[in-house]
Each structure stands twice: as C-alpha cells, then as structure tokens.
C-alpha cells in the first residue's frame, strides 16, 4: 500500500456546480422525478425554500474524490452517507476528504460535502480495500 495514504492525509478536493441540466439528467437516469427536485413551488410545500438536488446525486458526486485511488490498487468495499441539509439547485458543492484510518489492507476516507448555504450538507465514509 502506498505510504501516501496515511492517517490525516488530505485528498484533492472537488467541486461541482449542480446545474438544473445535471439534476434533469440524474432524474432521467435514476427515474427519480420527485417534484421537489424540479419545481420550486413543490419544494416549498415540503418546507424547502427552493428546489433541491437529489441526495443520491450528492453522494454520487462525493464518491469521485477517491477515483484517483481506484485506478491504483483499491476497490470500494463500503460507502455510507448522512444527508444533513439540502443542496439547492444551481449551487456549487465542495467535497473534501481525509484519511481517517489505515488498517489491514483497508483505507477509511472521511468525506464532507458543503454548499454556499450550509457548511455541512452531507458527511460520510468510504472504505477502500486493497486488491488481493
């Protein structure tokens, strides 16, 4: 295992503006056409100030932070995420990550997603497993 993956090592952050076009594409590819993602009025009826992106879209984008490692020697064994606050359509999200544990051929990566509105919209962990 590379010595680059040590406790506390920071991963290269990623950011993406989650445009309405991306939200539409995700709705199409996932089949999730819940109106809270596409219609401000429907989102307001559910207590949001504007339409929000799919939580699973945040999770999909956040996982890209480990892609540089996957083509090296790891595969993803586990991935979890808690969705804490909404991301509004059109916002740019920032994904940051750090190594929180290296043990027995596994690397645990803590990831956090933030937006201009909320410092933490989601947090989770990716467990990477070394190929045997």
């Amino acid at each position, binding site marked *: 295992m590379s010595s680059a993956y040590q406790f506390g090592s920071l991963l290269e952050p990623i950011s*993406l503006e*989650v445009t309405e076009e*991306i939200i539409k*594409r*995700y709705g*199409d*590819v*996932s*089949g*999730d056409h*819940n*109106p*809270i993602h596409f219609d401000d009025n429907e989102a307001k009826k*559910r207590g949001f100030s504007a339409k929000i992106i*799919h*939580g*699973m*879209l945040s*999770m*999909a*984008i956040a*996982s*890209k932070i480990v*892609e540089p490692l*996957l*083509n090296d020697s790891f*595969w*993803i*064994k*586990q*991935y*979890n*995420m*808690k*969705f804490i606050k909404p991301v509004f359509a059109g916002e740019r999200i920032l994904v940051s990550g750090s190594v929180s544990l290296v043990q027995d051929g596994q690397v645990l990566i803590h990831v956090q997603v933030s937006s201009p509105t909320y410092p933490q919209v989601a947090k989770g962990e*990716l467990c990477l497993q070394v190929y045997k």
Partner: protein
Amino acid sequence: MNIKQWEGAVTLPVSIKITKELLMAYAAATGTDHTATEELKHVPPALPMIFYQYMSVPWLDGQSFIHKEQTFVYEYPISIGDLLQCTISLNSVEKRRQFLVLHQELIGKNEQNQMVFSAKSILLKEAE
C-alpha cells in the same frame, strides 16, 4: 397509503445487466467526464440506486420521501458485463414524531447467487 402494511415485504427479483451505456449515462448525469469514466475498473459505488427505476416497489408508488441516510456494502465490485439479480425489501417502518421512517434494502446477487452488494436506505415521509 398505509405503508406500514408493507413492512417485511420483498419485491420480485429483477435481472439487471451492467452495460457500458448504463455506466456512461450515469457518469454524464453525475457530472463526470467521459475520459475519467473510461478509466474506471468498476462502476461508481452509488450507481445501484438507479436500479430502482427497473423495479416495482409498491410502497414507494406515488409517494414522496426525503432521503436521510444511505449505506452501500460490497462483497465484490461491479463491472461492465455483470448480470445482477436484484430485490428490494422494506425492513421496517417506524413512526417518529410527525414522520414515518422507512428502512429498506436493495440487494444484488450474481449468477452464482452470491451477494454482490447491499444498499440500505433510510427514508422519511410526513405521517398522514
């Protein structure tokens, strides 16, 4: 709909083939460029959630939920060409304050009937 009545229910199994087209469509929908996707050995970890659209899940029909937590656990990584037999189960429905909390699980097995992945979701819905 009385979602509680579906507690313990499991959907019929559905076979899903992992194709390059499916992977590329997912990548485009998540803001990933084409070249980066071509270099991946395995599909992205959150991709199995799009399998929901191929499955009939009666307790989700016409309902609107808020996604609170998601966990994927892999026994094997998924690659293009894999054929997965998928089911979704509604493991529990609890009432917590004004919300219903659903715990459900999508699982995928390979052609040898071995578990490939589990995708556990916690969903919230305002109680009626």
